[in-house]
């Protein structure tokens, strides 16, 4: 019953909700980012980070540090926190938490398949995979030659199996098909997650619907912009858009026929929530679009914490941590390559 979640939520979810709110208080603040942006070297970054919650993870790293090490250790912290929450969760929270990782599974699958296509070593690829998206038979992906084999050998046992029904073909895997496969899988995943949240009902479904709708719309815009000028037909493009979100169905119709960025902008400016994003960009420019989308996403995720007694806080926390790791990666790269003037181009402050 919507509005009365407060009466029964705490039976199963109260402890974990309090824990995730405690984790949230450990996110880096604007003051921390200011300190980090003024670092001269990676050693300085390590020193500043050891004063925050990342301390125990970074203190044993030998110098010289690499940016990938910093990112890896920070991701390890996220994985530890996720696992602590998952092992104490009951249904339906445990299913909800598992849904959060399916996106990473899809990315890992695509990473390995692409890497195998370009003849890289499987071990090297496995090390690059995101730890939240690992599953048991992931190394067997290197053996598959086309999508049918991919499904039959490996993916039928994973949670991604139901998402494959739309994209099984007998074509061999090449770069274009892999990207289409990635987007089709992600579309099926988003729709499944959306349905699951609707079934949960109450505040969870309201908050998650908003966040997932924004995600679907953002992906639609990115797919459109990335496929301008490629050989992807309009019908193929339309098949990659999700069936929910603010842009469904009329915005999708217009996006499918867009041929350049200004037409995309014209479509998006008809929707007030996205008008503010696109008004920040000047005409013909799309580099800042990513940052604008990230800022909007962070704003919506922070709003999820305003309400108590729902599952949206778990999703929001995971996403905010990932954003923080992206920020740290950008800052470390800028510092390592001595491009400190560009540091603020891509850092999104969370608080």
């Amino acid at each position, binding site marked *: 019953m919507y509005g009365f979640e407060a009466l029964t939520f705490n039976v199963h979810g109260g402890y974990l909700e309090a*824990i995730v709110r405690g984790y949230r208080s450990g996110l880096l603040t604007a003051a921390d980012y200011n300190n980090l942006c003024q670092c001269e070297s990676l050693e300085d970054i390590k020193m500043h980070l050891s004063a925050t919650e990342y301390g125990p993870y970074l203190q044993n790293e030998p110098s010289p540090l690499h940016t990938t090490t910093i990112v890896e250790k920070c991701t390890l912290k996220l994985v530890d926190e996720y696992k602590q929450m998952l092992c104490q969760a009951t249904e339906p929270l445990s299913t909800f938490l598992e849904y959060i990782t399916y996106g990473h599974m899809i990315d890992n699958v695509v990473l390995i398949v692409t890497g195998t296509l370009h003849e890289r070593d499987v071990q090297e690829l496995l090390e690059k995979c995101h730890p939240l998206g690992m599953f048991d038979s992931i190394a067997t992906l290197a053996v598959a030659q086309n999508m049918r084999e991919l499904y039959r050998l490996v993916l039928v046992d994973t949670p991604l199996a139901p998402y494959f029904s739309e994209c099984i073909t007998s074509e061999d895997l090449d770069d274009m098909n892999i990207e289409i496969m990635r987007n089709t899988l992600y579309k099926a995943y988003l729709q499944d997650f959306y349905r699951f949240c609707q079934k949960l009902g109450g505040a969870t479904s309201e908050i998650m619907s908003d966040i997932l709708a924004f995600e679907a719309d953002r992906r639609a815009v990115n797919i459109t912009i990335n496929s301008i000028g490629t050989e992807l037909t309009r019908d193929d493009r339309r098949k990659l858009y999700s069936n929910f979100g603010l842009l469904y169905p009329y915005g999708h119709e217009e996006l499918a026929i867009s041929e350049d960025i200004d037409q995309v902008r014209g479509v998006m400016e008809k929707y007030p929530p996205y008008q503010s994003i696109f008004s920040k960009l000047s005409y013909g420019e799309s580099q800042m679009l990513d940052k604008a989308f990230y800022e909007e996403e962070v704003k919506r995720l922070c709003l999820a914490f305003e309400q108590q007694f729902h599952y949206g806080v778990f999703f929001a926390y995971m996403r905010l941590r990932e954003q923080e790791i992206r920020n740290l990666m950008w800052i470390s790269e800028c510092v390592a390559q001595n491009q400190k003037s560009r540091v603020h181009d891509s850092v999104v402050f969370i608080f």
Partner: protein
Amino acid sequence: MVGSSSSWSTALVRISPYTFAAIGIAISIGVSVLGAAWGIYITGSSLIGAAIKAPRITSKNLISVIFCEAVAIYGVIVAIILQTKLESVPSSKIYDPESLRAGYAIFASGIIVGFANLVCGLCVGIIGSSCALSDAQNSSLFVKILVIEIFGSALGLFGVIVGIIMSAQATWPSKG
């Protein structure tokens, strides 16, 4: 004899007033304790989880648990008061209007106290949970949210006052 035409009303007034009184006493303690327990688990689970990151909140936030507990104590006190009002009447007078009135008064008193304490316990519990979580983030918020809790716990007190007034005039017919 009241209500002799309809069979339902006849059946209702032939229920012994002792039954009504006893059920009233049971509801007063049972439902109050339900409210207190409900409130304590709502507050307690959030408090324990939040105290992992911010251990300083534990001692102050036990006040929320104490407010919930007070609700159960109100229920016990009223139940004890009500059971002293339960007297025997001679069997010839058991269905007199005076007896029925006393039975109904004790029953109503029990319901008033029970349900007022139920919602009071729930209210204080939910606020206590939010109080623990916000205190963990920002310790200046604790005192302000405590004021909301104090207003919430006054609801139980209202129920107790009205219940005691109701039961004070529950006089059974005198013998003879």
